[in-house]
């Protein structure tokens, strides 16, 4: 058995990960995932080890709640066979390895740049002259959008190839947001700097990413969190999910020109994020989560206040959502628009909502539970059609589910336990992996330490890393005018992808 099985948030010695040759590494990992929809790759990355590149592959098994880690040392002068040729879900991971280290894959279908990272291997290639895929035809036309979009959103380039009004192909090129976060994690030595970086990976998922970072760090430092700390994290994650889902319902209404829904859902987000500010001083919950301590203890008075907020929020939300879901003009825009099939979602390794919309049961809250999700006995909400309607339904039902979890949590507030606030230094020569279900889906952070216990590599994977391809597939054969609603119904992160 040339892999090691670990649990979520477990730290192991790097030397405990068995190393094998590339042939075995290739066969075994493909074998693990092929025909096993319950297993998928949560992270696959390389780092420099002397003159060679060390690859680490992490496959999560949702039924046994394990993560299977294997490793392999390769020489970048040698061409490799690509996993992608057998399993498409590895395509972006291999493109990233190619882009960063110059490893050549002989049978990868398209080694397109991932994000033009600052530390890329070939610096002669720049984002400005990226050659987009094109089809030579007199009947087709291309539409280029971006990097700057019409609204107040992040940059990315979308290149459509259209047959009349119909989209034949969409290519998405990202990387404009690349700030070099993974390198800064190593360069900045203060814990507070790293925690600040974690909440800036994607500002709309400040809680999700900072909880993941806190779990990684605490596991590396062998710190046992108390229940009150995990209580705050669980509550903050559900509040974040609730706020963003409501905001996204507003965005979807905007894109179908339904003014009432747009305004009402837009304003309904405010009491939730204002509550986050009342609790921690920031509307997006920046500064709320810190490793090793309960930064802003959740008091019974805050519990009372949150109950009041929800008591007002719930009927107003229900009234609006019932109206939206009974409007034929809205439903006709949602149904059978932007479909991703179950087979496609599985093959590209979609996660989070983008998986659950098409009956792929992927939810870290139930498959690799963390914080207080053991106690909440979470059951993921699944839909079958994979269209905009499924994604909107998931948002509606997850809002309702989050409210019920929040109500359950605040009915029994964990009392604050005073900590000495001192974290030990991270264990040397170690590897840690942490998975958290953010509102978009699975967030995965991996950390490696060197012989002095210093951070040697910090690898971040936002759920958007998997799911951008789902958006590109969903718009095929749709009218180009339906692109905005498809895009909004996924609401993927640019900064989380570009890092």
């Amino acid at each position: 058995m040339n892999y090691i099985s670990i649990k979520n948030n477990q730290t192991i010695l790097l030397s405990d990960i068995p190393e094998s040759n590339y042939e075995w590494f290739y066969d075994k990992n493909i074998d693990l995932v092929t025909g096993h929809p319950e297993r998928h790759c949560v992270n696959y990355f390389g780092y420099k080890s002397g003159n060679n590149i060390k690859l680490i592959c992490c496959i999560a098994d949702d039924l046994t709640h394990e993560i299977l880690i294997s490793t392999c040392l390769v020489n970048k002068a040698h061409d490799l066979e690509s996993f992608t040729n057998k399993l498409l879900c590895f395509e972006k991971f291999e493109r990233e390895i190619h882009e960063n280290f110059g490893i050549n894959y002989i049978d990868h279908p398209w080694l397109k740049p991932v994000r033009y990272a600052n530390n890329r291997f070939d610096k002669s290639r720049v984002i400005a002259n990226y050659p987009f895929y094109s089809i030579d035809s007199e009947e087709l036309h291309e539409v280029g959008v971006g990097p700057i979009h019409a609204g107040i959103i992040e940059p990315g380039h979308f290149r459509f190839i259209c047959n009349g009004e119909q989209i034949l192909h969409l290519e998405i090129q990202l990387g404009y947001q690349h700030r070099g976060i993974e390198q800064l994690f190593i360069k900045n030595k203060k814990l507070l700097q790293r925690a600040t970086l974690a909440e800036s990976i994607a500002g709309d998922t400040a809680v999700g990413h900072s909880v993941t970072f806190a779990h990684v760090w605490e596991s590396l430092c062998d710190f046992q969190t108390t229940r009150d700390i995990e209580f705050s994290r669980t509550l903050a994650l559900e509040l974040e999910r609730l706020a963003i889902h409501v905001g996204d319902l507003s965005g979807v209404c905007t894109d179908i020109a339904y003014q009432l829904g747009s305004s009402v859902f837009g304003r309904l987000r405010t009491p939730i994020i204002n509550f986050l500010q009342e609790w921690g001083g920031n509307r997006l919950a920046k500064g709320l989560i810190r490793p090793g301590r309960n930064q802003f203890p959740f008091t019974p008075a805050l519990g009372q206040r949150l109950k009041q907020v929800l008591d007002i929020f719930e009927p107003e939300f229900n009234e609006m959502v019932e109206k939206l879901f009974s409007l034929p003009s809205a439903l006709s825009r949602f149904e059978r628009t932007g479909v991703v099939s179950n087979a496609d979602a599985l093959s590209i390794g979609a996660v989070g909502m983008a998986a659950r919309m098409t009956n792929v049961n992927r939810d870290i809250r139930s498959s690799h539970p963390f914080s207080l999700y053991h106690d909440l006995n979470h059951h993921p909400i699944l839909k079958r059609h994979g269209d905009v309607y499924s994604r909107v339904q998931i948002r509606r039902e997850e809002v309702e589910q989050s409210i019920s979890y929040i109500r359950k949590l605040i009915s029994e507030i964990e009392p604050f336990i005073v900590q000495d606030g001192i974290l030990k230094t991270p264990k040397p020569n170690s590897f840690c992996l942490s998975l958290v279900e953010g509102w978009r889906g699975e967030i995965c952070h991996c950390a490696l330490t060197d012989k002095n216990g210093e951070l040697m590599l910090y690898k971040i994977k936002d759920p958007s890393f998997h799911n951008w391809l789902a958006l590109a597939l969903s718009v095929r054969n749709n009218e180009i005018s339906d692109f905005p609603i498809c895009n909004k119904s996924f609401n993927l992160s640019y900064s989380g992808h570009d890092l």
Partner: protein
Amino acid sequence: MIDNIKIVFHQGKQFIPNPTTVEVPGVFRGRPVISHEKVNEAELLNLCPTDAITNNPISIDLGKCTFCGECARCFPEKISFSKDYKLSSNERNRLIIMEGDDKQIEVNPDTVRKEIHRIFGKSLKLRQISAGGDNSCEWELGAANNVQFDMSRYGIDFVASPRHADGIVITGPITKNMADAVQICYDATPDPKIIVLVGTDAISGGIFAESTAIDRSFLEKYPVDLYIPGNPAHPLTIINGLLDLTRKH
């Protein structure tokens, strides 16, 4: 139809009657106030993740501050964050809060370009550019125009094309990969035009200041008309900053 009227009725009046005087609820980390208390300065300076705190005298640069509140948590007798959300100025050095300062940050009317009030005083259309922003300031810029904050009541709006804009609003530290696009967008905006920086990342690079993946040379070429600090900037900070800039003679 009746359902719609019911919804509108149940929503009631949502708009904030006066966004220049309203108080923010609960805890809010706005403008810091630094006392003359003696503390271990080396320890205080070392706390800050972005080196926003300097000594002789102790001061906090809001253009670098991430508003994490760590300094106030560890040295509550020295630093406290007030709920004052009016943090914007047209002068970079007005964002630096000194020991003992407890007055509002304002735009300096003497150094505002003369045409700004005359041309943009009643109508200001802006083109937003996210250049490495993490989508938090973008969120709050969007929120500034929702039904509650309703910035468009002052004639301030975001537009889709730089050709329709009176200026650009930059969020994020300006990544190398976005540097060209920022320049193209600025060039496409007709004169006279303003540049507004929103958020700590845009003003100083924030936590990304040391990154080799950013390129801030654009900001060396042109004068900045307004700095709006925050991480992210609160919608009230944004609205008040823009009003302060355009309404002053």
